[in-house]
């Protein structure tokens, strides 16, 4: 059995996931509203209750990759003086889903 369920869902804020949810199953979010959820009854129920759209791992990874690529493009388009400005953030790096 796969360890995780992959999906997209919009974080609506307070109580979108609870402390109890976090104690009950693995849960992580990634760019592009991608969620990686522990493959359990409670995890699957959570994704369904949040109107999540289940994805394959490859589909979820593609969404994350597209988001990171987009963020990198935004960063790359910055004037050099802004990129090199002290205190500014780094160029986003690739993220590999678990």
């Amino acid at each position: 059995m796969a360890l995780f369920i992959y999906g997209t869902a919009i974080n609506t804020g307070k109580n979108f996931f609870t402390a109890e949810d976090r104690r009950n199953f693995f849960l992580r979010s990634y760019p592009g509203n991608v969620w990686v959820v522990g493959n359990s009854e409670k995890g699957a129920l959570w994704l369904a209750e949040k109107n999540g759209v289940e994805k394959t791992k490859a589909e979820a990874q593609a969404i994350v990759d597209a988001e990171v690529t987009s963020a990198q493009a935004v960063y790359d388009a910055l004037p050099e003086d802004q990129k090199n400005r002290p205190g500014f953030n780094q160029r986003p790096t690739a993220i590999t889903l678990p």
Partner: protein
Amino acid sequence: MTTYNELAGYRVNYLSADPTLNSGNEGQVWYNSTTGKLRSLVQIKAWAAGGNLGTARYSLAGAGTQTEGLAFGGLATVNQNATEEYNGSAWAGGGNLGTARRELGGAGTQTAGLAFGGYITTVQSATEEYDGSAWTAGGSLSTARRYLSGAGTQTVGLGFGGFTTVNVANTEEYDGSAWTAGGNMNTARRGMGSAGIQTAGLGSGGFTTVVSNATEEYDGSTWTSGGNLNTSRRFLGGAGTQTAGLAFGGETTVNTASTEEYDGNIWTTSTSMSTARRLLTGAGTRTSGLAIGGFVTAASSATEEFTSSINVTTAAAWASGGNMGTARELLGGAGTQTAGLGFGGFTTVATNATEEYDGSAWTGGGNLTTSRYGITGAGTQTSALGFGGGGPSVATEEYDGSTWAGGGNLGTGRYTPGGAGIQTAGLAIGGEASTGATTATEEYDGSAWTAGGTMATARRRLAGTGTQTVGLAFGGEASGAVTAVTEEYDGSAWTAGGNMNTARRYPGSAGTQTAGLAFGGGTTPVTGATEQYDGTSWSNTTSMTTARQALGGCGTQTSALAFGGSTGAVSSATEEFTGAFQTTTASNLTTS
């Protein structure tokens, strides 16, 4: 008929409701007339995974406690000389044994350990003493042997049983320099579980010509029979004392995970370990034990922690909070989990927007006078301080719950300094000045900044927490690389603290110098890792759900708030942290 009062020294109270529960209720039984149930506090027992040994091995020895454990020697593919020290969550390397060996005896503590006997290619008599960093030679056993058992301390030690070319019953007593003969065990055997001290020792199980369930108790001169184990076994682990012992794991005809507790008379079956194994070692007490290494189908690095308590621990967790109105990174934060403040930062440009959190939702507050990112915050929602950021800026602003007003300028303009304290007693720590990462600290008195002590490590993109006189700085970038370095401030000087487990830039922060919290930050890529500081060392706790860096943070170690930041793109996500907590819960008593 014997009454409960005669057995336990307490009468069964007739109550309309459960009493306020605390450790004083332990052992008491009461009748709840409302629910019609007989009630009591019962010990809840559990094994939990601990940190893995650096070197997987079996036939090793152990000593110490669950939070200050010691493992040494043993066998992987070859005899081991490695020593490892446990801090309650992770093992770290200690000084190597002078003689690599397996099937040895162990006793003592993490800073005063004792290793003796064992096997290389022949049985050994050598003793070594550990001082917390190095082993030195001690007096040799009279009878060289392997698979022997140990108890006691480095200066009042006990070695018993084992195998030469046959099982032996010999007991030897150590005084810190020499071994002398003690009383022989009644049954010669090897591979026992052991516990106790030189004058109150305990040996259980082991192997004669068959696996044994026999227990013997030592009084400093003579061994007498104790209660039998429920499960006969050999090569088990042991912990505790003669009257409060713990036996776990070992081999029946197969590896076992079974655990038993001893009260000085009777062994009672307890909750089993997660991993069945033999040739492991143990440390700690009956209520706070440690199972270390052993052999599963190969050498194991697994550590398990046994806890017996009337309290149930609820794990720490992050939960979602209301999203910020404006997604942003590199923002300032202040306040508490239920009265938080986020201000400034970077969206696609620098922003001056301020938002206030009430424990469930963010609403707009007064705008900063100067839009900027890399700003740092301190104080509360209604009395906050924002300083530094874009420029690098020297500008300081003070918030009164609705409006930002100018404060005294920093002496050194800087991006993303660490921040601590309150509006009238603030602290700006390090950061990125126009000349690069700085060690400079400045102290704010409500109107002006003055120079404080300098950090040992110049760095930028760090975090701070605590107060102006009891501050904490951690993480960031030093010499171009992410750092795990922590420093503690006493109001005038910085001193070294324990390193974080995960080096990172732009972490979020909350809490105090002795109860700090670090969450998120940049590694490669961003992380959600959360760590707790106790004034000495950092330990890992549950990660944020959304990994990110350059986020805002506020609150305490047990009630923190994380908001905004960058996951790759700017984020509006808020998470609320609740630290682990314990509850005392009564159980119904039944006849089954």
